[in-house]
């Protein structure tokens, strides 16, 4: 009833001794996540919230059998942290860090082609399988277990959507923030494929925004291969071209990445696109009731 992370997940927090790392380690532990280790180079041997700190990912793997990492290290060191985790063979790498240089991500992407690790993010809220584990910074209590999957390029917008879903009684199997950067580890399609195989997921809410063509590609995939109801929302209909709207990846450039084109592509693929965020929860409820 979830993908990628669940009760089996043993998290290592990279940058655990930093302010954000420590805060969210506490939050994750409170949610019930097994945070088995932390890593901060040079601070091995300490503890944060009762979690042992190691100098390297390698040691955290050897000593604590961690299989998922959650990265809070500052942008100049984040690519190193991702590659470190990938080289150590972690299954899932969640990178919260915002502001990683694009050319660092070019390197990361090149390396990940040859590794089995799944990278969520960077510049994302993380991933949560409600009731099981939360790897990231989303507020836990707004979630509840259930049949809806959520895939989103955004953070708080996702919380808003989840809040509405939970409000209408629709719980979630897994919610993933794939990240707001132009180069991210996974696409909508990567996760749609996983949700397709997840028997407990009954429908998907896809939250896109301006910039790039990921939503258009997802629309093609859904039309051709996806067999569960999808409800989409696209943020940025009023965003002007050429400006980065907060997210590094949210920019209309060279005539590409407009909300309008995305909405058209999704609708042409037969996907219900909610235009009004205020009533998105109700819209999802209606679609799911029909199906």
């Amino acid at each position, binding site marked *: 009833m979830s993908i990628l992370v669940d009760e089996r997940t043993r998290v290592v927090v990279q940058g655990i001794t930093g302010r954000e790392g420590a805060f969210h380690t506490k939050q994750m532990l409170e949610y019930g996540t097994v945070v088995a280790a932390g890593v901060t180079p040079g601070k091995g041997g300490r503890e944060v919230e009762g979690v042992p700190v190691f100098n390297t990912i390698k040691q955290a793997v050897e000593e604590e059998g961690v299989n998922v990492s959650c990265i809070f290290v500052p942008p100049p060191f984040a690519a190193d942290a991702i590659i470190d985790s990938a080289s150590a063979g972690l299954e899932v790498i969640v990178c919260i860090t915002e502001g990683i240089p694009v050319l660092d991500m070019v390197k990361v992407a090149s390396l990940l082609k040859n590794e089995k690790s799944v990278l969520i993010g960077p510049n994302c809220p993380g991933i949560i399988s409600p009731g099981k584990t939360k790897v990231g910074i989303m507020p836990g209590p707004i979630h509840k277990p259930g049949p809806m999957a959520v895939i989103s390029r955004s953070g708080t*917008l996702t*919380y808003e959507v989840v809040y509405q879903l939970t409000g209408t009684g629709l719980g979630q199997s897994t919610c993933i923030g794939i990240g707001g950067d132009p180069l991210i580890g996974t696409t909508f399609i990567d996760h749609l494929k996983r949700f397709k195989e997840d028997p407990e997921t009954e429908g998907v809410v896809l939250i896109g925004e301006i910039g790039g063509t990921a939503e258009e*590609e997802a629309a093609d995939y859904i039309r051709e291969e996806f067999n569960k109801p999808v409800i989409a929302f696209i943020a940025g209909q*009023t965003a002007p071209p050429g400006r980065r709207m907060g997210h590094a990846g949210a920019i209309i450039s060279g005539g590409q990445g407009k909300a309008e084109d995305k909405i058209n592509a999704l609708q042409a693929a037969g996907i219900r696109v909610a235009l009004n965020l205020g009533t998105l929860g109700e819209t999802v409820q209606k679609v799911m009731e029909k199906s």
Partner: protein
Amino acid sequence: MKLHEYQAKDIFGKSGIPVPNGQVVTAVDQATRATQIISGPPWVVKAQVHAGGRGKGGGVKVVHYPYEVVTATESLLGKHLVTPQTGPEGVTVNQVLIEEGIEINREYYLSMIVDRSTACPTMIFSQAGGMEIEEVAARSSELILKEHIDPAVGWMMHNARNLLYSQEPPPPVGALSALMSVMANVYKIFMTLDCTLVEINPLVLTKDRKVFALDAKVDIDDNALFRQKELLLLDDPREKDPLELMAEKYHLNYIRLDGNIGAMVNGAGLAMATMDVIKMAGAEPANFLDVGGGASEDMITKGVEIILKDRRVKAILINIFGGILRCDVLARGVVAAAKKTSIRVPLIVRLEGTNVKEGREILRNSDLKFLVARDLGEAADLVSKQVS
């Protein structure tokens, strides 16, 4: 971070990409001297502004007499230039580039970006140079060629050959190696300076098979400026909106727009969606403002102040989904702002999430006049009422 044309050409010149001789002037009396140093006629006088579409806005003048260089410079310096990419108020021209005119035989388009879907640095080349590349893409996309560069191997000569020999007709033999060298240098600049864009449009061939970058656009990855410290010196804050510049100082993500409803939101996606809600309610957003997850009370105060500095704003919608940013912090920030600046317009507040009760309590107990929206739907209705 955008560079000016003359700054980009300076980088080009140092890297071995041929550019026309030129000189940047900031005062009219420097123009005469420039004509004595730079060979001509003709000369080209170009306004140095970050906004694109300069040519259409009258920011580029080709002249044939030294006195015309002076009058052209005079007509541009200190003036407001309105281009398709500026607002109707335009941008002030603070610098002018005076260049030797180059006799053009063929015009190419050359640029480098990071392609989002392949995650590779990608060179784009077209024989349809000198036009808006978006228009070329829309009209005859077959004229636009791309080479994806694998970061493990870097730029290789076959990348250049694939682009050049696919032209019909291919560039003349005498110009091939010069073009290949320009391409290799564009890649090098892109990678070593952490660029998000290097663009030469047009890249021209003269009759005697010389190659020149007639225009130059270089954008630097803001996230990489920590390791590109010397490029920081090239930043020209005069090109930015004063309110955006102020927001930057307080680490607020603010973009000024043309509407009349101000918005303050946490999170970029939610901020965009809130702008859309405003639009659907029949109004126009006056700004994008993402205060971020870690906003402090003070940042909230500054955010309200900046929104209000835009005199067009008729109402403000605050939409906060408390996560890491707690609703009580937001409320305190808004109340503090009200104490500093009189909030002269209606305030619509929608709070949800962490510490929402405390937040609402703080607002209620303040002198502040504000309208509460229980959800986004209601917020839209309230916005709608303000503009009707």
